């Protein structure tokens, strides 16, 4: 079966994924990098937990919190996955992840008064440390800028 398009309701087996990978021309180097990265994502605890949480959030249905609350948008899910893909385990030790009613995702620091909100094209954050405040909204999203902001806050 071809693993293309929206597979939100499809749970591919090991065989499906391997057959897909073998159906496209991938160099030995790329295969090795993919293999290493996948092992990292399932064995490093904070990273694995973050991925599991995102998978859980992707299952939320319309009206999950009542009053017309929206499921997380596919663009937002793709954005957070792009951040996960370039991040390390230690980047996620600090952060709790949860859904927001406006189809976005929120992060909250475990140790600082800091919160972030990730949308389809922009993100925002608020931090208060030692009485000093730092905040921004409508920041253009890129995985690199978002991850850099997470690291700065943490």
């Amino acid at each position, binding site marked *: 079966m071809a693993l293309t398009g929206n597979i939100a309701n499809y749970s591919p087996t090991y065989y499906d994924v391997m057959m897909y990978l073998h159906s496209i021309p991938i160099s030995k180097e790329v295969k090795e990098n993919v293999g290493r990265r996948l092992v990292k994502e399932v064995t490093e605890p904070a990273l694995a937990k973050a991925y599991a949480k995102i998978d859980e959030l992707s299952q939320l249905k319309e009206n999950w*919190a*009542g009053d017309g609350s929206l499921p997380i948008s596919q663009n937002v899910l793709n954005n957070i996955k792009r951040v996960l893909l370039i991040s390390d385990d230690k980047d996620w030790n600090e952060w*709790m992840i949860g859904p*927001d009613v406006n189809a976005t995702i*929120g992060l909250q620091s*475990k140790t600082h008064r800091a919160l972030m909100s990730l949308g389809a094209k922009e993100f*925002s954050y*608020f931090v208060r440390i030692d009485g000093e405040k730092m905040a*921004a909204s409508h920041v253009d999203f890129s995985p690199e800028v978002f991850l850099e902001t997470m690291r700065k806050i943490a």
Partner: protein
Amino acid sequence: MSAVISNNEDVARILSNQWISNGEILHMAFTLRDKETYISVNRPAIPSYNSDVKGFVTSHPDFYADQRHDKYIRAMLNVGEIRAMRIDYAGITLNVNVEVEPRDIFTKSHAGIFTRHQNKNIKNGDTLYIKSLDTDVSADEILLEVRSNLVDISTLESCNL
């Protein structure tokens, strides 16, 4: 005219399980929906509170606190502490007030937490003009700060339905 809520009263924000992590309340529990001008809360001091909450939780499974479906989780906030919130920007205290008012058209115990600038309700996407600084501030930043403050003054409780 709706009655004024006393500063001594506490209000409850009923929480989805998705808004709790590591035993903490996440800021998303206090998000304004698009075009919404207040955060819905309920008043335990009103006699219909228990039946109002039960009616809501039983129709939203994500709000059950456990598998037996006999508990829910709430964030308790003191009205006086909510009203005492002050929002600063660039060293200036903005004329932003956080107010709690009854909204009993839905259920008798229902109320709203409003964020206002110069007596106008703030919602997502608004822009506030700060005259003393001759600059615009995004309401989204203000509302993020309000969320952070509400989390700080909340107490998490598990209750029987």
